């Protein structure tokens, strides 16, 4: 069971290192979040290749999103996405009520400014996974009330 904690600690340290290096190099917070996103992108590509090795082909975009919300999310974050909404025109909103990386941070207003740093990597993982499945998209995240967060995925044509 210590494997779960390992990923969380590693993630915290990655964010901290990128932030510290960013301060030394004079980078903005956005640059740091960008770096984290690209790290996540490469991770997402590799993870999805391994995971979909044995799964049958997806029928369409919606089925791919359902797979992401169920199997993919459970294998990384140990739970499924709680809410998936779509406008059937390429925009999907995934809502996680208890985001794994926020459960260790207090849910008050105190840390809501730093919250975006902790979702950057996950946005990248989502984008990398979808891009390897053939869907180019933009992923943005929104934190209204910790520990829940929303990911908005816009498929590019």
């Amino acid at each position: 069971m210590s494997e779960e904690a390992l990923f969380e600690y590693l993630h915290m340290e990655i964010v901290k290192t990128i932030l510290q290096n960013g301060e030394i190099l004079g980078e903005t917070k956005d640059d740091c979040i960008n770096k984290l996103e690209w790290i996540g992108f490469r991770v997402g590509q590799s993870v999805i290749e391994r995971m979909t090795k044995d799964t049958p082909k997806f029928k369409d975009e919606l089925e791919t999103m359902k797979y992401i919300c169920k199997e993919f999310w459970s294998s990384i974050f140990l739970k499924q996405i709680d809410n998936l909404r779509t406008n059937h025109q390429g925009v999907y909103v995934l809502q996680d009520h208890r985001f794994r990386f926020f459960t260790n941070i207090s849910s008050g207003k105190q840390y809501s400014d730093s919250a975006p740093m902790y979702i950057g990597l996950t946005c990248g993982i989502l984008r990398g996974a979808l891009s390897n499945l053939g869907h180019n998209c933009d992923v943005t995240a929104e934190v209204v009330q910790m520990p829940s967060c929303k990911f908005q995925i816009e498929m590019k044509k």
Partner: protein
Amino acid sequence: MALCIAVIGKENEPLYFQSVSGQDELRLHHIVYTCLDVIEEKIAAMLASINALPTKQGIPPERRDPYLGLLYPTEDYKCFGYVTNSRMKFVLLIDGIRSKLADEDVRRMFRRIHAAYADMLANPFYTPGESISSKKFQNEILSLMTSSSGG
């Protein structure tokens, strides 16, 4: 026995090509690339048949198989194809006359290629989309080709 194995990327760019020595490589390249047309047809047909089903019905497993089977036989070679969920295509050319490879054997070979590819993606020094130069992948493919020549 396996004459040639090729890995082709999402945009149909060649990523890896390995053939048994002593073969006319240019001709093998040519045959592999003509297989791409057949692969595209098969994928389109598969998608069309899946979308034609009513949505509530479960999709029978053979329609969603990554293994495409025999693409087309020429007089000397048999070509087999396999498409992964990430749109990577693997093409396998087999000596049509002397080979006794069963369908199951070809499936098994493709699964090994897919596993080797997934392992290679995990290598941080490999960027997806660039041509494959990993020694480990190459050794795995070479061992596949030599082991298949026993049968």
